[in-house]
């Protein structure tokens, strides 16, 4: 069972229809969105790349939802790096259920249908930290649903709990098990500890996410990350890319590594930051993420502030586009005379 099945042409045919309908749906039910479309001279799209996109940061500035207040079931918030700017994502019951279901189907594409014993490369204490909870905690909690018999790799002080890991591996290490964590935590706390303590992770399936910035700072490339993990027996490794503004949709690394793939209900368009047209394969640009999941808010076509590149189409582990995330666009700053004195004593 996989959600990575549709070749690009077939996928675009389905997506264009569904997303055009979703665009209409949001236009009718979200007045600010309707105003944006009107002001930009929106015409129905004839291709996926022609669908009208919103800058993802709009969800930090505006309340955008396509459901009445009394149908709001859950409001998700992301903490931005500045703290003051928080995305607000409004889900009704149906959208909340659907995003959980689709996320499950996506990870089951690599885990199989059964819940596996699970190592969480994080600390339970983090769930209590209100400041970091929303982003990191939501990720961990969301993913923990896909495992059972969880063990936390880090204790409350953030130190590696080697005994807990050893106990887990003794009990479950002979069968497939799931490992989840943020990329830099996996690198800092799991890889090194497994190497130094001779832990056998060869039955593990690692799903990891989070920016590469902290690792690049330590001169660890994605390729080296994979190679080194394979050195401790961990060969089933899947990075993923996703964001709270398209909750439930993740772009998952294929079994052979090096590329992220789009599930059948999602896609990416890499845009030239000068012309805003779609870039050809191999040319980097800004990543636009597309998903049919956002039905309760107009987040179905979003321009991110991440840069990426499509490596190929229908030529990898799974059908469709395969791509990489290259890093974040720096935030624009003004040179002006006001608002520039943030260091004021």
């Amino acid at each position, binding site marked *: 069972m996989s959600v990575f099945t549709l070749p690009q042409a077939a996928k675009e045919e389905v997506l264009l229809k569904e997303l055009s309908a979703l665009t209409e749906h949001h236009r009718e039910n979200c007045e*600010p969105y309707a105003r944006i479309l009107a*002001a930009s001279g929106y015409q129905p799209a004839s291709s996926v790349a022609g669908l009208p996109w919103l800058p993802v940061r709009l969800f930090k500035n505006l309340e955008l939802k396509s459901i009445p207040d009394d149908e709001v079931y859950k409001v998700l918030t992301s903490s931005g790096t500045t703290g003051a700017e928080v995305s607000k994502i409004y889900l009704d019951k149906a959208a909340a259920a659907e995003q959980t279901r689709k996320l499950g189907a996506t990870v089951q594409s690599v885990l199989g249908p059964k819940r596996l014993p699970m190592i969480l490369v994080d600390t339970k204490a983090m769930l209590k930290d209100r400041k970091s909870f929303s982003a990191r905690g939501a990720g961990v909690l969301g993913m923990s649903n896909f495992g059972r018999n969880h063990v936390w790799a880090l204790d409350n002080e953030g130190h590696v709990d080697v005994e807990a890991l050893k106990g887990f591996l003794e009990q479950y290490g002979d069968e497939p098990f799931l490992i989840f964590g943020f990329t830099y935590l996996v690198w800092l706390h799991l890889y090194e500890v497994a190497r130094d303590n001779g832990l056998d992770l060869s039955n593990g399936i690692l799903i990891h996410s989070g920016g590469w910035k902290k690792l690049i700072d330590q001169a660890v490339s994605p390729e080296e990350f994979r190679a080194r993990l394979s050195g401790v027996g961990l060969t089933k490794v899947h990075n993923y890319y996703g964001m709270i503004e398209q909750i439930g949709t993740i772009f998952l690394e294929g079994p052979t590594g090096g590329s992220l793939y789009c599930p059948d209900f999602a896609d990416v368009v890499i845009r030239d*930051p000068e012309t805003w047209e779609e870039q050809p394969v191999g040319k980097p640009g800004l990543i636009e993420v597309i998903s049919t999941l956002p039905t309760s808010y107009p987040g179905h076509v979003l321009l991110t502030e991440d840069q990426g590149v499509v490596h190929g189409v229908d030529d990898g582990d799974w059908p469709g586009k395969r791509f990489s995330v290259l890093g974040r*666009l720096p935030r*624009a700053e003004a040179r*002006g*005379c006001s608002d*520039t004195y943030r260091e*004021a*004593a």
Partner: protein
Amino acid sequence: MIQYRFGVEGDLTAPSDDRLTVGDPRVIDFLGKLARKLLAPAVARRHPELGSLGFFLRPAELHRAVEHMQHDNALVFPRGNVFHIPPANVDTIFVYSWALSALAGNHNVVRISERSATAAETILTALNEVLADADPVIARTQRMITYGRDDKVTAALSQWADLRVIWGGDSAVEAIRKHPLRPSARDLTFPDRTSWAALSADGWRAADPAQRRAAVLGFTNDSYWFDQAACSSPRTVFLVGDDTNDVREEFVTLLLETVGQRGWEIDAAMAVEKRVNAYGMAATGAISAMEFPANSVTAMSLITVPDAPRRWIGAGAFPFAQVSSLLELVPAMNRQDQTFSHFGFSHEQLREFALALGGRGVDRIVPFGSALTFGSLWDGYDLPREFTRLTTLVE
């Protein structure tokens, strides 16, 4: 930690026996030499904005400013100790502010931002080069320093100052004002400002192609120099007249051309910033249309004049609104509004507009191309007067 960038190191607030006069020849000599350095072709090529600063500091200009400091009915003296806190990112402001104060004979301490850019470094190098041959009194009375978040230094300098000059917007003014001044001292503040442009449709149509191009070139410099974020950079463009669509269309076309020729570059991050702001304004119903003909220019149609944004919305982002006359804008102007750049209006129209404003908003009404030209009359202040004090003598 205080880093000394200019002048004698050591206790900044110690009493001094040095006395400068208003228009002190040693200061004029120093500033004149500085002007020559800044006007040197190699410097002007790298930092064209230093050229206008050099022009401002020429001896003839300095003598004019000194003359302006004189008073018919009083003796004029330096105000005393002046503490300058210029903005981080407009590199040249600190020199204008400091030079006028030095010319008035004050003892100055200028806090240079840690985030100051390369033009500021160039100026500091020039200042120190000139200092080598200058009268030593300059180094003893004029000091420029950089320090990080250090409330103690700010507090001590605030107690030392007779006048504290705070640039850098509302947040800077509020932060610095937490440090009390002596009862006799006061602040000269430069809070957040908004600036506008107005284009007379009749004036535009009457202008020949060369005049239109020159107007757009001036407007481009006003807008793009500091990423449209200087307090005097125009943001919204008011089209004054009837059926102004043709004027706007030609204006935007020329703007795109000019920006391209001048080589102003708008990067992807700025383009996204502008989209975020434009989409946000569309979402809230402030604009009815937005166009993105290139990353360099974003054009928007405002629905009503009061919706014209007062915050920065990116470099090369222009809301347009049509009004039938300048007088229609008067109710929308307020104390925050600083510079009003204009093209195509008659002297009478502008004067009528200024009188109708009655000082309740807008400090400068200047032609396209002059918005950023610093003058000793700024933000409604007569700076040379602010930097001096008066003694009445009745016999």
